């Protein structure tokens, strides 16, 4: 096994001290890449624009910090052209769910074997705090996000997990940047999954998130475990069931839980995998 440090470049991250992105970076460089024994030259990390998209510069594999919203198609082109590569995409909620949202149902449809790590920090941080499609609408007095008083976010927010479930992504998981051990296991499963993997990472932005946001998330977070009962939010009329990530109908139910009421962590769905190279399939 390679030592974790060998996957870090000498480049110093631009992130604020305490930024949740360090959790994902640590999970990747100290645990997942060495743990899977992925050779650096056989690994490609593609990103778009945003705080989390600076990630490739800090990981000593092949990397591509591209343009806003287009990491997913760039990664698909690379993976289809060189299927032997392990291709990981890193991006934020603005990158993947606003400007680049149009690409997601199509990568799911093609089920290209890439692993997308969607860093959800609920805000446009690099441009200094504008609302993103995942920004929750908050009431005054609760530490409003920048400019919410004049330009409130639109509820319901776009939920990454429910979106992925609705398009039937073949692997759907959600982790939290503050629990690196759990996150690392999700990313590892995503990379090992043959097919398109989507992993949302709830990531605190220490500068622009109100204090209460991650307090709620951490308080209410529930870890999904195979064959164990699922904890329902108070508003749910469902009866509890045993978690089974192979059942898409259960994943649909889970995806409907309001994020801030019951943040679920773990593997929501793990579907069947299919090869992606169309020309080889025909023979």
């Amino acid at each position, binding site marked *: 096994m390679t030592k974790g440090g060998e996957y870090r470049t000498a480049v110093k991250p631009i992130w604020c001290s305490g930024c949740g992105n360090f959790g994902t970076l640590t999970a990747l460089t100290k645990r997942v890449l060495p743990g899977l024994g992925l050779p650096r030259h056989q690994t490609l990390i593609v990103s778009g624009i945003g705080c989390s998209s600076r990630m490739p510069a800090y990981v000593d594999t092949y990397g591509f910090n591209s343009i806003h919203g287009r990491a997913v198609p760039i990664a698909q082109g690379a993976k289809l052209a060189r299927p032997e590569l392990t291709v990981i995409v890193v991006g934020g909620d603005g990158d993947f769910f606003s400007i680049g949202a149009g690409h997601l149902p*199509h990568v799911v449809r093609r089920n290209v074997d890439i692993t997308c790590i969607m860093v959800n920090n609920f805000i446009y941080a690099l441009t200094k705090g504008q609302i993103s499609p995942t920004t929750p609408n908050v009431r005054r007095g609760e530490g409003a996000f920048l400019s919410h008083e004049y330009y409130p976010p639109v509820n319901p927010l776009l939920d990454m997990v429910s979106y992925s479930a609705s398009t039937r992504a073949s692997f759907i998981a959600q982790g939290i940047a503050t629990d690196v051990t759990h996150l690392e296991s999700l990313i590892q499963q995503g990379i090992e999954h043959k097919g398109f993997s989507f992993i949302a990472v709830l990531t605190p932005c220490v500068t622009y998130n109100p204090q209460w946001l991650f307090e709620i998330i951490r308080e209410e977070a529930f870890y999904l475990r195979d064959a164990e009962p699922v904890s329902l939010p108070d508003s749910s009329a469902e009866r509890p069931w045993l978690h089974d990530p192979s059942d898409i109908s259960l994943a649909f139910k889970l995806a409907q839980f309001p994020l801030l009421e019951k943040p679920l962590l773990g593997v929501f769905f793990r579907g069947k995998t299919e090869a992606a190279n*169309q020309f080889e399939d025909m023979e």
Partner: protein
Amino acid sequence: MRASITLGIVGAGGHGIVAMGSLLQRIAASQGYFSRMPRYYTAQIRGGGSAVRLNLDARRLSLPGDVLDLLVCFSWEKYLEFETELTLGADTVVVYEGEPPAWVVLPDNSFKIGFSRISQDETGSDRNMNLVALGLLSRMLSLDRERMGQVIEEDTALQLLKDNIFALDDGANIFPQLSFPDMALEPARDESPKAVIHGNNAMARAALRAGCRAYFGYPITPSAEVMQDMLEGLFYEKGVFVQAEDEIAAVAMAIGASFVGVKSLTATSGPGFDLMTESIGLASAAEIPLVVIDVQRCGPSTGIPSKSEQADLDHAIYGGHGDAPRVVLAPYDIDGCYRLVVEGFNIAEGFQTPVILLSDQWLGQTFVAMDNSFFNSDYNVVERKKPGTDDADGYLRYRMTEDFISPMAAAGDKGFTYRTTGLTHNQRGVPAFDYETHQSLHEKRWKKLAPLRKRNDLARVFGKGKSKKGLITWGSSAPFVLEAVEELGLKSELKVCVPELLHPLPDRVVKFVQSLDSLLVVEMNYSGQLHRHLRAQADLPQDTRAYCRVGGRPFSRTELADVIREVAG
């Protein structure tokens, strides 16, 4: 006997107009005739109008005449939609179905023929009226019936005829007492069969020849045939083909595939090309080889999707923010479509830059019967510079070299991991924010392209070197200009320059304009985009004129004759 003929066929969608034109073109090509067949259609898929104009030539690959020698009309209502493409003269022979409206002035030699009735009687369906008419045409043109029979047997594309050969023979026997001696074509000078191709087809084949193994595209008129031909080609090559969700994804995928070392292509037309602009800037900034084909159509916005124009030059050269250098090539004929796509890949790989090929609807979709030996010529194929043992110790992806081109590793190459980015970056590829790095990176990206100015082979010059009067034109306008100069007998007075490399502009073009007292620039766009580009690149003669007008209709001989005579003085 005549050496060439221009004929038109028009009807409703479903009358089999293009099929009939294609069959006639193939039959004639098999007997050695050169031909060009532009297609005209309205946006409606079924029930709209459809027309072709076909000029057959026994001696050389010529352009259609302004006025038709022969018209086959299945619907006068549809004829109206294409009146400007299918101009009748006093000597035009017209064979038609149905009663013409009172206001249509028919030429003397016009014959009403019940094509659909004959088809109904003989084949049980009026759907074969195009074959009946084809039979009549083959007799009028004196195409060899015996050889036609052989070709129909052998060519799978002519299966339709094989099954309905009696309809063809019925057509050939219409009005046996009538003869059309003026219509008969002399035998082809060289009877070896000609291949029927179009520019879109030639470009796709060239991409495969250049080693392209990945295609990403989104359907758009008039470039869709490139995508179709790449699909077939890559299927056999076991390459990668993706119909992307939009042009932004298509070009991004092409960049991703190229980044990992696979030559990649995307083809589109104006609106799709707009969407690719940001990514072309990325390929320029991160120095990733990329080839983009833009089969131009009338713009702006949706414009006229099915008709030709040359109005994307500004966008190809200058499109996008920042100073993002790229290379722009424009073929003007079919073999140029092939040669320049191979060249485009070579430049993209050799210089690690985006290359934009400007074709257009006329070049891309006009079916041409010609000698296709250029498919089998020798072409140099260039591969990108890879890092060697020198680079093993601390690989610098953007190392400043003598020629400003740095060795480029591909993901998968051991020992050379690096990170690329559209951010300003240092030699290692690490984002940088200082003026000095920014300035030197621009110098690197711009100066590496300077040797292309010496590519004088990519600027064609026709005519006498000493002449002080000249024309510059580009793309599909060039054959019209060259033919007009020749027909006017002005070849010794006027020289013509056709740059195939438009950016960076070869020195030869600058020298050409410097040798002139009078210059005429001819192009098919409203604002004179090449004219303005030339003004930015060279001091043009005081007596410089531009003949530029929108697309939607090819240049006619008469319109060009007027402007060319003027500059010839």
